[in-house]
């Protein structure tokens, strides 16, 4: 049986950082598991940049400013102690990435270039042309090669194993052989990324962002925190949801309605297009709703205009953006405005991390980091450039803590993990043998439509009640779902089947959190409760699962320096 001191699941920025730190310690046996080859992880999609107060582009920038921007951006739902820790440790983390070899864009002085980004009071977003995520991910992979990190490539986490109130290992499928394998581990770090695919086509996320880690945590009795906070990025391509980076607005792009008006001046008179994502997304949806968009229904959109930036600036600063617009929308931003619409971009909520200094959860031995986790530093709304930052810093924090803890723990018993393997083997056989029932794609499409129309940018009680009911139906139907491929070798149909199961579990938590949060805050915009309600809702939603029942509770937000005030941009 495979046995590791530390098992990291997910090889995005966060997972690789965790594995690198853990494996730098002597005498520990570390493995990194991923359902995709490491450089395919969602982190590669990040275009715009990563925040850290380096003071390169603006010497007056301070940690306090970054902290306040993040607190304010979070609509005061972020835990301020965690945010302080985050902002304070970001500069050293970026410098270390520079030392690892990340090819950052540079200023004349030779220091890392920084650009302005939405919701921030100083240009502090470190970038590499418009591919920061890709170069960070590849650089971390290079470091893994250098350090001989043991990677289980194309292994799918199926479940966590819990015994005597601690995690003792996992059950996973080696996709290349189809074998369902028991793995023992003293500590497990979940770094499995977001769950944006519950909105399927209306998301910027890659196919792999299916909330697997969040769902596995739920099944293992670990709670999700603030799942209702789903960020909609204002500028997904109208047709596909493919992201036009925030850099478009950072570099000075305009948002126009069908009157040719820069409508953001009515919603955020000072920051205009550079207001936070939630505000800009909501503004766009209002424009569309009130008839000032182009097109109709799901096809409606507004325009992102870059033309005034000029050919040279577009070619130099936004070359990938231009390529994407040409390839996927048939439009060259040098000559024409780009049709865009908000698209699900990021899960602020996630696995309930109860100690940001370790990324530990309530389950002993289990750590969570990156987009699958909720510390919470992003609160009700994440600032652009704060996720890749979160990922590279807290990956290290989790890896280090998991390594320390592993030194004091023994392996659990093999019996429990073997039992769970047998259950999954049986479930595999009976599932792939089914020939009659709904298809995976049909359930998935109903889920995503339900989520977009009822739990999207704007929300209200009646619609969310409907969504709750539909999701329960879908969960029931899922049990009869047809996979359509009985083979064991690289069975992507079965992988997609398990991913859909995870999306359903997480979606149910999203709706439950949203329905019960009777206020508007950050990305969570209720038409029936238009204002923020600090008296009743300055608190984190905590949702856990017991059997098929979900349990809801709340936990206070940590406020240190900044008393909640109204957010204006």
């Amino acid at each position: 049986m495979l046995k590791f001191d530390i098992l990291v699941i997910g090889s995005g920025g966060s997972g690789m950082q965790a594995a690198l730190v853990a494996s730098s310690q002597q005498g520990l046996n570390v493995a990194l598991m991923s359902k995709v080859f490491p450089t395919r992880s969602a982190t590669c999609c990040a275009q715009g940049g990563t925040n850290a107060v380096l003071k390169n582009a603006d010497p007056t920038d301070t940690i306090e400013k970054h902290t306040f921007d993040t607190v304010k951006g979070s609509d005061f739902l972020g835990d301020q102690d965690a945010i302080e820790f985050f902002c304070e440790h970001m500069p050293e983390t970026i410098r270390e990435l520079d030392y690892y070899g990340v090819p950052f864009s540079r200023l004349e002085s030779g220091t890392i270039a920084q650009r302005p980004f939405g919701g921030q009071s100083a240009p502090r977003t470190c970038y590499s042309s418009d591919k920061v995520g890709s170069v960070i991910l590849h650089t971390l992979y290079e470091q893994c090669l250098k350090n001989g990190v043991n990677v289980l490539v194309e292994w799918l986490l199926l479940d966590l194993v819990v015994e005597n109130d601690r995690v003792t290992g996992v059950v996973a499928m080696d996709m290349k052989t189809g074998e369902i394998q028991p793995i023992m581990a003293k500590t497990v770090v979940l770094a499995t990324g977001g769950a944006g695919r519950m909105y399927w086509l209306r998301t910027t996320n890659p196919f792999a962002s299916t909330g697997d880690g969040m769902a596995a945590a739920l099944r293992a009795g670990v709670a999700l925190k603030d799942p209702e906070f789903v960020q909609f990025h204002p500028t997904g391509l109208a047709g596909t949801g493919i992201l036009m980076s925030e850099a478009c607005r950072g570099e000075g792009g305009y948002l126009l309605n069908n009157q040719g008006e820069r409508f953001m001046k009515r919603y955020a008179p000072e920051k205009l297009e550079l207001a936070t994502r939630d505000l800009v997304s909501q503004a766009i949806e209002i424009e569309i709703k009130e008839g000032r968009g182009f097109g109709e229904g799901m096809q409606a959109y507004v325009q992102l205009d870059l033309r005034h930036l000029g050919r040279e600036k577009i070619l130099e600063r936004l070359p990938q953006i231009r390529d994407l617009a040409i390839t996927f929308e048939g439009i060259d931003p040098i000559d024409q405005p780009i049709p865009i619409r908000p698209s699900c971009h990021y899960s602020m909520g996630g696995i309930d991390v109860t100690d940001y200094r370790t990324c530990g959860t309530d389950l002993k031995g289990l750590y969570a980091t990156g987009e699958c986790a909720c510390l919470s530093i992003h609160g009700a709304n994440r600032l652009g450039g704060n996720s890749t930052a979160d990922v590279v810093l807290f990956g290290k924090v989790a890896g280090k803590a998991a390594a320390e803890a592993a030194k004091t723990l023994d392996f659990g018993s093999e019996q429990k993990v073997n039992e769970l393997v047998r259950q999954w083997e049986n479930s595999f056989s009976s599932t792939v043998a089914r020939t009659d029932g709904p298809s995976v794609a049909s359930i998935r499409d109903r889920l995503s439509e339900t989520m977009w129309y009822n739990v999207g940018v704007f929300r209200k009680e009646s619609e969310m009640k409907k969504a709750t009911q539909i999701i329960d139906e879908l969960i029931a139907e899922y049990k009869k779902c047809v996979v359509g491929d009985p083979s064991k070798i690289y069975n992507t149909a079965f992988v997609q089947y398990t991913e859909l199961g995870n999306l359903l579990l997480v979606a149910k938590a999203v709706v439950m959190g949203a329905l019960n949060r009777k206020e508007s805050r950050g990305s969570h915009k209720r038409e029936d409760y238009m204002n923020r309600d600090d008296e009743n809702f300055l608190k984190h939603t905590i949702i856990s699962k017991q059997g098929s029942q979900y349990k809801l509770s709340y936990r206070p937000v940590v406020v240190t320096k900044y008393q909640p005030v109204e957010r204006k941009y």
Partner: protein
Amino acid sequence: MRKITFKIQRFDGQESWIQEYTLDHQPGKTILWALIQIKETLDPSLNFTASCRHAICGACAVRVNGQATLACETPLDKMLKRWESDTLILEPLQNFKLIRDLVVDWEPKAERLAELKPWLMPKDEFNKESGCRQSPEDFKKINKNSDCILCGCCASECNKLSGNNSDFLEPFVFTKAQRFVADSRDKNPVERLSAAINHGAWKCQHCQECVTKCPKGLSPAEDISNLRQEAIAKGLVEHSGVRHAKAFLDDIQKTGRLNEGMMAVKTDGLVKSIGNIPFALRLMSKGKLNPAHMFPKPIKEVAEVRAIILAVKESEKARNIANAKRSEAHTNPDIQRPKEAAK
């Protein structure tokens, strides 16, 4: 309704076969759209990989009519038009171990990638705490090659790799190596250079397949020749022995291929030691070898040299035409090549 037929190479771990699927034509779609459509509406057992669906994760490379490409960014209509046919052949990448259908194994490639030590070895003046410094000009030198997404298109079509992969590495491995050799923060370009030489940098056949297939517009072939030039400039040829220099001359004599590395050769000694001037002239004729560099002293009879080069060029023409014909046949969709099963 216009129908589009896809002939897809299937593989179940043992057997390999071609399966046909037909979809209704829809305008403005991609090859990835077609694959997803087939999986979701016709045959859930068809396997391929894709994640980002916008040309940044490198997961979706397949061969369309014998040309490696990213399924997600390849417009279906463009392919139908290019091949003037409503039938397309989809196959897995070549030069990879096949797992199932269009899914190939990247794990062995990771090991081969590591051969050239593709990670930054920071100069001693830098440290973890304060990071590095680099000028914008120096950043530009590594910016382009950092675009590689490890999609494998170059490796799939590399003629050298198809012929013999035991003394050569995937083109992207050299591209990665060149990215570190060119990185002003790195202290040890020589280590990567000598590794590149030892892993076949002289064996590239200059077929340019890697250049034309790279979805990110990179030029592994050029990177390979840069590595060679740099190796010579760094004195690596003299240094690590006449063995390489000689191997490289042998290569020229065997294959008649040019050798851009020579551009950097500034010593009379090596020029004389070539001993076989026509070969050197052939190199010049391809514009890859600058006579001014071959002869460190100013050349008096420039005109004469040019005339000779012209003559050599003429003699090359016939061969080029033959080559072009061959590669045309190679990419013709109507010619079905026998397929290798899993390697």
